[in-house]
């Protein structure tokens, strides 16, 4: 699956996009977060406080128990500040 990071999450992770293949038992957005945090200090810092992180699956806002599957586009970003 394709994972995207925006704004200060991108800065902390150190990249805007990565392709990942998590193990089969990672089936929710929340589980993906835990798995991603083990990949690097940058990931761990970016995803440390989920109160200031939003997640979208295939460009729709979802919660931390939302199912994920191979091929999904999963994006992590801070609360939005446009307009």
């Amino acid at each position, binding site marked *: 699956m394709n994972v*995207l990071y*925006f*704004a*200060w999450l991108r800065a902390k992770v150190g990249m805007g996009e990565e392709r990942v293949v998590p193990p089969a038992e990672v089936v929710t957005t929340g589980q993906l977060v835990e798995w991603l945090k083990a990949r690097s200090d940058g990931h761990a810092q970016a995803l440390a406080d989920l109160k200031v992180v939003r997640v*979208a699956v295939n*460009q*729709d*806002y979802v919660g931390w128990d939302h199912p994920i599957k191979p091929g999904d586009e999963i*994006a992590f*970003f*801070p*609360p*939005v*500040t*446009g*307009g």
Partner: protein
Amino acid sequence: MIRVQTEDFDPGAELEAFSAGNGKVGGICMFLGLVRDYLGDDPEKAAQVRGMTLEHYPGMTERQLEAIETEARSRWPLHDVLVIHRYGRLDPGARIVLVATASSHREAAFQSCHFLMDWLKTKAPFWKIEHTEDGDLWVDAKDKDDSAAARWDQKK
């Protein structure tokens, strides 16, 4: 109509094209958002912002804005809706966003325009970074934007 772009736009020309020729339009409400030259909520911190950069999530931005437009049209009788949102580097005073709604009735025009701005503020995936004398600062989301958007939930 939704447009997400780096280029500036001409609000007068947009308005002219928007309202042209529909004799059923009695009122148009437009909101134009600009880059302020000060930080946070304090106008006394003037001239500290050298500009900002708006990052967005291509694809999701358009998808969310279209969903917001659809929602507005389902709530109010609108003849037309226009949302233009810029991204990229913007100088102080630059135009950021334009929302316009056209209806037969002024109340529908006002409410739908206000609704679009409030929802856009909390749902459209844009992020601002302010370029200041002290470095670059990501702008924090505001609680008051959430509560502004939430009032439309109650009215539904």
